[in-house]
């Protein structure tokens, strides 16, 4: 065989191989492999608790399984690189599939003028758009949390917006179940323009391109710190927060939990009878150099003495946690979903209907 013929043969082999790879990448078997792995990852992600500490997995699953979970990022499946890569490959597969089919779909459309012809193609396009728009929304959206008590105000990150919590109400029914959480907000921008509104669960307040979601609530206490009987510091602590005397940071008080209507069970555990402020008590802990020294329950205003220092938890008040989010491409998800639904309706209902009609009319 001459050198040229050999080169020609090698080129044909390479082209053949590339064609095979291309056909595989755009083909159904590849998409099924990807969907199979994605499904398996989804099962893992729903069975294994996500986003816990390494110690949690080691304790819960043992060292061997725990290490495997961490090594394969099964503790954060839906955000790990290989899951995102799988979604990317699925998009690639859908793009190739859509491109390779468009000619035949257009030809079929020109030949038959049956709208149902577009169904399958639009369905694939809808899925592709959905994944891309979801990713776009995830990467371009920004989210921040603010929490505070009525009357407080704080900036929203570096957005230039200032959020004032004007009011916070918990609407309760007679049986003390919660009907709604409602926060009154005033949002102002750098120009001094203000927008006022209410944010409740399912009904976010929208202002200056942001949506403000009523996310959570809890109890806060004011904390007064005394040294030798003299007030040296006042803080507002939400449940789970701590504070310390500025001149003695090794001594820490943590406000652990609040019981608006305190009661104690026979086994010694605490609970609240109603959510109303009838018999308020706070559970606190005193730490010295990170070690728990004492833990107890106090009434509002009751003095907790530790050597030269005194701590007073007082005036319990409810705080609200608001999530502020901006998502400039959220609408693309809706467009993609509409394309997908349209594609499915065309695939399953318009096309068969037209076929039936043609059959009834004796057409081919």
């Amino acid at each position, binding site marked *: 065989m001459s050198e040229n013929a050999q080169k020609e043969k090698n080129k044909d082999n390479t082209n053949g191989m590339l064609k095979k790879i291309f056909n595989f990448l755009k083909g159904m078997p590849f998409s099924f492999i990807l969907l199979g792995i994605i499904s398996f990852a*989804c099962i893992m992600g729903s069975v294994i608790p996500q986003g816990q500490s390494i110690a949690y997995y080691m304790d819960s699953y043992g060292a061997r399984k725990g290490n495997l979970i961490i090594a394969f990022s099964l503790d954060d499946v839906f955000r790990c690189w290989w899951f995102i890569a799988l979604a990317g490959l699925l998009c690639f597969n859908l793009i190739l599939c859509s491109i390779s089919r468009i000619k035949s779909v257009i030809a079929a459309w020109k030949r038959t003028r049956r709208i149902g012809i577009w169904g399958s193609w639009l369905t694939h396009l809808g899925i592709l758009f959905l994944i891309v728009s979801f990713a776009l929304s995830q990467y371009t959206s920004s989210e921040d949390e603010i929490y505070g008590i009525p009357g407080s105000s704080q900036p929203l990150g570096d957005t230039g917006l200032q959020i004032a919590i004007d009011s916070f109400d918990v609407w309760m029914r007679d049986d003390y*179940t919660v009907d709604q959480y409602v926060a009154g907000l005033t949002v102002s921008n750098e120009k001094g323009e203000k927008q006022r509104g209410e944010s409740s669960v399912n009904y976010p307040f929208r202002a200056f391109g942001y949506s403000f979601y009523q996310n959570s609530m809890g109890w806060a206490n004011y904390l007064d710190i005394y040294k030798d009987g003299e007030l040296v510091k006042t803080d507002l602590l939400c449940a789970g927060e701590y504070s310390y005397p500025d001149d003695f940071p090794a001594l820490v008080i943590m406000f652990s939990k609040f019981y608006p209507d305190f009661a104690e069970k026979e086994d010694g555990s605490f609970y609240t009878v109603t959510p109303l402020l009838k018999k308020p008590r706070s559970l606190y802990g005193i730490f010295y150099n990170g070690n728990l020294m004492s833990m107890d329950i106090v009434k509002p205003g009751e003095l907790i003495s530790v050597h030269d220092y005194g701590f007073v938890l007082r005036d319990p008040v409810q705080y609200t946690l608001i999530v502020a989010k901006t998502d400039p491409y959220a609408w693309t998800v809706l467009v993609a979903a509409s394309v997908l639904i349209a594609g499915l309706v065309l695939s399953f209902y318009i096309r068969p209907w037209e076929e039936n009609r043609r059959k009834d009319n004796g057409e081919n």
Partner: protein
Amino acid sequence: MARIENISFMTALAAYLVSAALYFVYIAVKKAWASKAAYLVMAAGFLSHSVSIAVRGIIAQRLPLTNQYEFATAFAWGITLCFLFFVKRFKFDALGAFVAPVIFLIIGYASMQSREIHNLMPALKSNWLGFHVSMAIIAYGAFGVAFGVAMAFLLKDKVHGKIAETIPDEKTLDLIIYRAVALGFLFLTLCMVTGAIWANNAWGSYWNWDPKETWSLITWIIYAVFLHLRIRKGMTGKKAALFAALGFICVIFTYIGVNTLLSGLHSYK
């Protein structure tokens, strides 16, 4: 009112059981009266079931679609609705012998749940609840019918005589499975889309990888693969029937397993 709800629910439960028994009689003796009686009893049960759900809605002053009991009873209602339609549409009387037991099992599961009416938590107080859950009911109902037909398909080879005669040919069974899955798939997609819109309104994110969402996606993928193989590769017969059965097992897990075994945003226990 609570008494009316209770009586109509129990009537539906009994009717579905009697209907299943009559359908078994039908496939055993192949007498038309048995299938007609079974269908009528099933339809009567469906009416009574509808009354039970409507009355509960009136008592609760909201859509009764928010807890294990309410969704289980609505799930059974959805399968019955799809069953009544598919039986008439495809003239497959014996289908009841395969679907009625499923309906009875699901409403039986509902009867074991707490029927106490609770007030809605704020997260569920949304107009999207009705759209989202009703899409799920129709989707699950259609998948339930596909499962029943798949069982008929898988058992067809193993039974003889009159029972075999009551089951349509494989081509018809295959077509019903396809039609039921296609209907269910469309509504499952709508369920997921309306749920995503609702989630965005409530939490500011379309998708949160909550176990219910994740298992809905897994179910969606299984049926998507089924439809692909059916339409593009002409997958029919036993494989298609097994696929439809697998999909429904996934549906059941998404509904019962996820709510009871996995915690998440949907576990309103």
